[in-house]
Structure formats: C-alpha cells, structure tokens
C-alpha cells in the first residue's frame, strides 16, 4: 500500500510534464531557393525539384519554382544535358546513368541567379546480406508490446564490405512495401575503414512483410548535409542551423550523387514471445 502511494506520488511528479501550443512572434524572411537534386545509378535518371522557403506562419502549400534552366554536366567531357520540367513539378532527365568515379555538376539558372553543385560518383558497394536480430524487440523498449497491430519493431543488420580507400560514407534507407520509412540511417568508416561493416537498421515489420534496404554510397558533403538535416528536423541541437548546401549561390538543399544497391528481407516467423 505504501509502495503504491509512493509510486503514485512519483508518477505525479514525472507526469506533470505537459505540452501546449504557444504563440511566438517569429521574424519574417525573404524567400530563398531550395534545390533538391538526386542522381543515382539505378537508371531512374536525374531528378531536381526547385522550391522556395516560406515564413513560419505561412502554409507550405505548393511553392514549386518553374521556368528554371537545369543542366547536368559531365565534367570530363563537358557534355551537357538539359532537364525537362514536369508540369508544376520536378525537372527530370530519365534513364541517365552516371559513370562511376566521374565528376558531375548541376547548374541551375533561376530568375537571373546561378547556382552550381559538383560531386564525384562513388563506387557501388553491394549488400552482402541482411540479417534480423532475433533477440531484439522481445521486451523492454517502451512501445514494443503495447502494439496491438501485427506491426512490431525489428532490428536488421546490413553487412557489406567497406573499400580500403579512406573515408566512405553511407546512407541506408528502408522501404516497407515500397514506401520509405521515416528513419534515416547514416554511417561512415572513420573508425573501421576497409573492414566488413555491420550497420543496424531499425524497421517496423510484420509477418510476411517485405522490407527492401537500399545502401547509398555517398560523399562527405552529402553525409554532412544529411547529418545536419536530421538534427534540424529533430531539433535536438541547442545551436540549430541550416544544413550546409553543396550548391553555390546561397541556395538551400543539396545535390546527392550516389551509387545505389539494395537487398530484400521478408519476415517469415514470429519473433520472440
């Protein structure tokens, strides 16, 4: 009885934490161009989306920027390809496949301003295997058992060989039934360069659920950009800032040039108790 009382008092203390919406008078700011430029070796081709920033109090709406000139340049032979815009949407160059080890640039001309980013195409790193951790998710972590649907937390390991050359950076994305999960996993080989890598990937799945894991071999600038993007979105830093773009000309966003490999995993047996 006494314990119950103390427990309740304790809960009272910790559960008094409460959230509420408040009004803060935030400054307004001039709109800035945001460039999201993606190119990989999967054959999907180049994809570039131009948007603008809006004030905090505005709705995001559809600030897609049209009428820009977007050119992909292969630096070794100066070949230039202009991307075509889909109506009110992204600029694309379908089926374009970059050459490993070559340098590429995106050049964007928009409302008289010029923006440029360059990157070198990394080598593809195949995923050796995907393994599920049988001991994970059998208790403990809050929310695991509270789940009444068949969905549950699971931990996969992606195994792959890091090349001996220094400083490799990876992003792992997990897709459940072709929908990307929220989580963004970033790894580098700073402490175990050239070794067999074991990278944890936390996913949610269910029996017979199909998980596709993509391993993106990226460069340092993009790795940094994504690390900062995670911090920015999660608001976990005391001195938050804008992720540093690899585009020149005071633009936001990034050019991600990456080698893309993938593997699939299907959960066939129930996990744990």
């Amino acid at each position, binding site marked *: 009885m006494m*314990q119950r009382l*103390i*427990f309740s*008092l*304790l809960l*009272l*203390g910790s559960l*008094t*934490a*409460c*959230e*509420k*919406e*408040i009004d*803060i008078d*935030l*400054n*307004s*700011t001039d*709109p*800035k161009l*945001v460039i999201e430029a993606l190119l990989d070796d999967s054959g999907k081709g180049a994809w570039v989306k131009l*948007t603008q*920033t*809006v004030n*905090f109090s505005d*709705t*995001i*709406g559809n600030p897609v920027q049209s009428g820009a000139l977007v050119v992909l340049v292969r630096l070794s032979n100066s070949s230039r390809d202009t991307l075509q815009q889909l109506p009110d949407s992204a600029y694309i160059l379908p089926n374009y496949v970059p050459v490993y080890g070559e340098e590429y640039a995106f050049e964007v001309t928009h409302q008289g301003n010029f923006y440029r980013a360059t990157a070198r195409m990394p080598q593809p790193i195949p995923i050796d295997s995907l393994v599920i*951790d049988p*001991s*994970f998710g059998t*208790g*403990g*972590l*809050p929310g695991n058992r*509270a789940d009444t649907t068949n969905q549950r937390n699971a*931990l996969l*390991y992606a195994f792959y060989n890091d090349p001996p050359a220094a400083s490799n950076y990876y992003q792992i994305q997990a897709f459940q039934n072709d929908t990307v999960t929220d989580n963004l996993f970033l790894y580098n080989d*700073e*402490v*175990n360069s050239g*070794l067999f890598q*074991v990278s944890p990937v936390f996913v949610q799945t269910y029996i017979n659920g199909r998980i596709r894991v993509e391993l993106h071999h990226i460069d340092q600038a993009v790795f*940094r950009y994504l*690390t*900062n*993007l995670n911090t920015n*979105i999660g*608001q*976990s*830093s*005391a*001195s*938050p*800032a*804008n992720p*540093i773009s690899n585009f020149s000309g005071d633009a*936001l*966003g990034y050019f991600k040039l990456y080698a893309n490999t993938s593997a699939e995993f299907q959960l066939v047996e129930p996990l744990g108790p």
Partner: protein
Amino acid sequence: MRYLLLLVGLLATSNSFAQNFTLSGYIKDAKTGEALIGAVVAVSGAPARGTVTNVYGYYVLSLPAGTYDFQVSYLGYTMLKQSLIMRASQKLNIELKPAQQQLKEVLVTGEADDQRLRQSQMGVEKMNIATVNKLPILFGERDVLKSMQLLPGVKAGGEGQSGFSVRGGNLDQNLILLDDAPVYNASHLLGFFSTFNSDAIKDLTLHKGTAPANFGGRLASVVDVRMKEGNNQKYNVSGGLGLIASRLNVEGPIQEGRSSFLLSGRRTYADVFLRLNDDFANNSLYFYDFNAKLNYRLTDKDHIYLSGYFGRDVFSFDDQFGINWGNATGTLRYTRLISDKLFLNSSLIYSNYDYNIGFSTSALDININSGIEDWNIKQELQYFASNTQQWKVGYNVIYHTVTPGLVNAENTDISSLQKRGLESAAYVSHDWKPTERFNITSGLRVSHFAALGGSNYYTLDANRTVIDTFNPAGVAAQYAFLEPRIAVNYNLTTTSSLKTSYTRNTQHIHLVSNAIASTPTDRWLMTTNNVAPEIGDQFSIGYFRNFKENTYEFSVETYYKWMQNQLDYKDGANDQATVIDPELLFGDGRAYGLEWLFRKNKGRFTGWLSYTISRSERRIDGINKGAWYAARQDRTHDVAVVALYEISERFNVSAAWIYQTGNAVTFPAGKYNIADQVVWLYTERNGYRMPAYHRLDLGATYQLKPKRKYSSELAFSLYNAYGRQNPFLINFEQSATNPNRTVAVQTALFRWVPAVSWNFKF
C-alpha cells in the same frame, strides 16, 4: 626592482613584530571534533587584533605580552569568551558548542557576522548548509549546488538543473572541487540532482571568478566543497527516507579525539517502482553516491586525511542498451605545522569522470567509452608572517588524460586517440592589512599547459580543413601565462566597506556541448595547437554595508569580464566527428552586470533578496556574420527571494521565489520541404528568448518529539507551488490538424511537485 624593494620592505615590517608572542591553535566543534573553517578569533585589549581560521581550522595571532579578552565566534555556535595572559608563545585549542541542540546536524555555517564586509575578497559566497537543509527543493532532495543558484550572479542551467552559470560564464567554466579534487560532471539523472549528498558536506565556498591565486584553471568560478571529517568524539548514525532516494550516514571516532571516519551513501530507487510495471521489468534507472573520509592525527603537528567519492548513474533497457556514467575522486592529504607560523599542506589527488554506452545484441557489441582522468599533486606553504600579513606559496601539477567518445569496435586502438596534457601552476598569494582600514590580497599565478604527444594532432588551413596529421613524441603545443590577481578592501566605517578587484584566469579543459540540457555525453577537450586556451579578465567593484549589529547586510557589486578564445560549434558542425578541431570556432566573450544582495541573518525570520541585471555576449567569426550575439545563458533579469521562518523550536517554514528572463535561443524564421519533410530555416543564432521563468517553492520541517538517544524530522516541500508551466523547451512541428501549418509547442516539466522525506539521527 621596485616591486622587490617593496617586498623586502614588507618583510621588514613583519620583522618589526618579532618581539611579539604567538598565539595559535585549532578551533573545533565540541560535539563532533570537526574543524571550523573561517571562525573568527579576536582579542580586545591594548592592541585589538583578529583573524580567521584556515580550511583546517587553524589560526595564528601575534600579540605583545599583556592581558587580553579572548573571544571566538562562529555563526550558529555559542560564542566563547575568556581572559588570556600572554607571557610566552602558546597553543590554545578551542572547542565551540553548537548554539542549539537540534537536529540540524550540519550546523556548520558560513562565516562570522561581518566577515563578508571585512574580507578583501569579493564575489565570494558561503553556502550555509543548515539553511540549505531548510530550503524547499525538487523531489525533496537537499542540494547545495541548487540552493547556490539562489545567490546573485549564479544562474541555473535550466529547469531543475544542477548545472549553473556564474557571471555570464559557460557551464564548463566552473571549477567544482570536492576536497580539492575536480568533479567534472557534478550532476545525476541529466542534471536534476547534484552529486553532492548534503549529509557528507561540511562547507561550500563559491568564488565568482575572483578567487585568490591558489585557485586557477577556470574562467567563471571556483566552487570549493569540503567534506565533513567525521565525528571524533562519538558514533553517529543519521539518514533519511525520501520520495526518490534514501540516505545513510555513519561517522565516529576510530580513536577518540584522535582519528575518525565518515561513510555516507545515497541511492535512488525510482527503478524499484518502475519494475512493478511489466513494461519496465527489465529496465534500470538509478544513481548512487558514496562518500568516505578518514582522518588521523599522527601528532599534534601532523595530520593525515584520506577522502573519496564514488557515484554513478545507471540506465539500461532490457539488457540490450545501457548507459552509465559517474565520477570517482580521491584525496590523500598530509598537513604539518612546521612551526606555529608555518603550515604545510600536501595533497595527492585523483579524479575521474567517464561514461560508457553499450549496445549489445546477438550480432553486435558496440561500446562507446569516454572520460577524463586527472592525477594531481598540490603543495602549499602558508606563512602567518604577522597579524597583518600572511603568505601562501604553492604549486600544482595535473596530468590529464582525455578519452573522446569513441565507438570501441573490437579492433580499434583507442590509445592513439586519447589526449594527454600536463597542466602546471605555481603561485604566491599575500594577505596584507597595511592599516586598520585596508585589507589587500594580491597574488600571482604562473600557469603552463603542455599538450603531450603520443596521439594524433592536426594541422588546419585557414578554412579549418585538416591538411596534416602528426603524432609528436614530445610536446605538441604549449602555452604559459602570468595571472595577476589583486583584491582591495577599504573599510569606510565599521559597518561599511568598499572593495575592488582584478583577476585573470586561464582555462585548458573545455566542454563543448550542443544539447539543450546537460547530457553525460557532452564532450571534454583539452587545449591543443588548434584549441587555444581560454583567457578571462575580470574587474569588479563593490559596496558592502551592515545594519543593526550585522542583523542585516547589504551589498552591491558590479563586474566586467572580457574573455578570449571562447569556443563554439560552427554552423552545421558534426559534433560526433572523431576529429573535432575543424568543427569548432573561436572568438571573444564579454559579460557585465550588477548584483544586489540584501540579507537578514538573525532572528526567527531570516532570508535574502537578490537581484542581478547582466549581459553575456559572444563574438565569433563565422557565427551571426561576426556580430556580437547573446550567449545562451544571457538573462537580463534574475531575482531570488528566500524567506525562512522559525515558528517554534521544532517547526520551520520556508519559501523561495525566483524570476528570470528566458534564455537566448535560436528559433526558425521560416521553413521548406526536403524529401517531403519540413525543414526549418534559421537566420541567426540565439536571436530569440524563451518566455520568462518564475516559480515559487514552499517548504516546512517539523521535528518529531525527540527521544533520549534518537531524534527525527519530517521535511515537506512543494516545488512550483502555483503550477506555472515554465517551458523547458519549445519545439516547432507540423500541426496535427493541418499538416501544411506549423506550430510552436512548449514542454513544461514540473508543476506542483510535492515531496516528503523523513530524516533521523541517533
């Protein structure tokens, strides 16, 4: 040369008192044998003279032959008066009796009635542990570090945090010493509790960046915490049962009057209750503290002390993920009275802070270890030249080893990444009363830091990009500084004084933190070729006035502090980077303010009112386009009102109210989409303010009817009595009802936290 002549002159002056006899001895608590620090010893007679005891309770007076009225006073103790005939030098050890025979087991209090007025040091505060025990506090856990935040010039790190900022300094610019051993992370459970179990603490002195030359190594403050020595008269057991923790303290003589021990422990048991809930059955979340001290008087002149602290936080989920962190300190000290006037103090000190994160599953074992370890030798000679002059000469050598937070995969060699440094200092400090009205403390500290080889150092270009890595065999970088200090007190009248001081401090151990609350994983760095030492210069002036025979005291102090090589992360830094040097930026800092304190010390109603108006700013190339910006802890107004009332001998009530301008924070000015996620657009660092913070806490202690050998009390507290929702953090998120809209959401942590604890002693 002129300085040398002056020194010779001074020594000659002291020689002119050579015909005097020496009166010296120790002042102790009659019941426990604890040395009383800062007790006032005075004689009235032909020449009136007075002094205060040092940290070992030792005093020296020089007196010509004659008859005197001798008196010893100490707040909270019955004053002792006796007549004294001086015909030869003599020893006089005094035992003072506590004023009231109550449960206030740690009635060791700060200072004599007007000590604050008369000492030359400014920016000094003593925390009275008896007062600390009566103040209301979060979860009812008495906490000297948190009570200290009610003093002017000291600001809490955040809601319920034991981290603090002194005079606009950063949290890592405070040197926290427990029996001379640095405590690198003085907090438990993400800062909600301090590591100081008040059962084991005797005395706390805070120097707000104006410490004399025997202290050094941090810019903002020195918090000098002394552990109790243990009762050398009789055995004592005391302790308490609280809402979240229990404490037990055992002390007593090993040989009566000659040696004693103290053992003190505390452990929280929140997790015991958590386990009642099935979902948390395999989890742990607790901390504990253990303090021990042995002291042994070898002869009348030689004394050995051995003290230690060990505390740890343990947090684990399901035996798969665990994090634990903690401090360990140890101090071996030998003091010797070489002659009546010469006191030697030698210490060997160990200090360690480390944290450990483990993630272990069937396929993977990841361990992250990080920490800072110190070996420290300190020696000081205190020379009581005369009643008007006192010298301290000493040195201090510290060998630091810093292990950065590294993923310890099986085949990584951590030792090449561990940084080692040697921090040395030698000092001389001089207390001088040239006339009855003047009191001057001057000093010089010579400090040196060597970043030692044996690990990797980096050469950066102008853009702070690594262009070379080297691993020197000897010294990678070294710096030397002269740190002059002077403090002058001029007594305008017997009840008022004017003080001024100048102090330079340097700092070679830095903490870079990027988190909103203090986390155990904050990163410690040492000065290297790329991380320049921090330098702080502080100038201050103050006016002190006491009223009604020291019943009331009033003071106003103003300061200006200039800081060099202040470090911060650059925009978009990777705080997890193995090589941290390129992620940091350096610049200047300035802090200035005005501190008012009005305090009532005597009577049934006591308390104080403190108000600080201040600024703290930084200017760093690469942040906010190189313009001055507010430091996170910059809070313009800071008010504390503390009231204690003794309703009866057995019943005390207390209240504390604080008001603070909100911290400077960075809020977004706009937003955009990347990969269908909302990303925040920032335009400047620390350009906004959190809403103002205010809170009222109430407390009461009631002593249950004492039995013959046993007494106990109940302590009640109510934290945040009017339940204000003070924002702990403000997050920006997509509105749940309309994802195209974004809203600001504040999280408030504690509203109306009641607590009760039961304390006993037998």
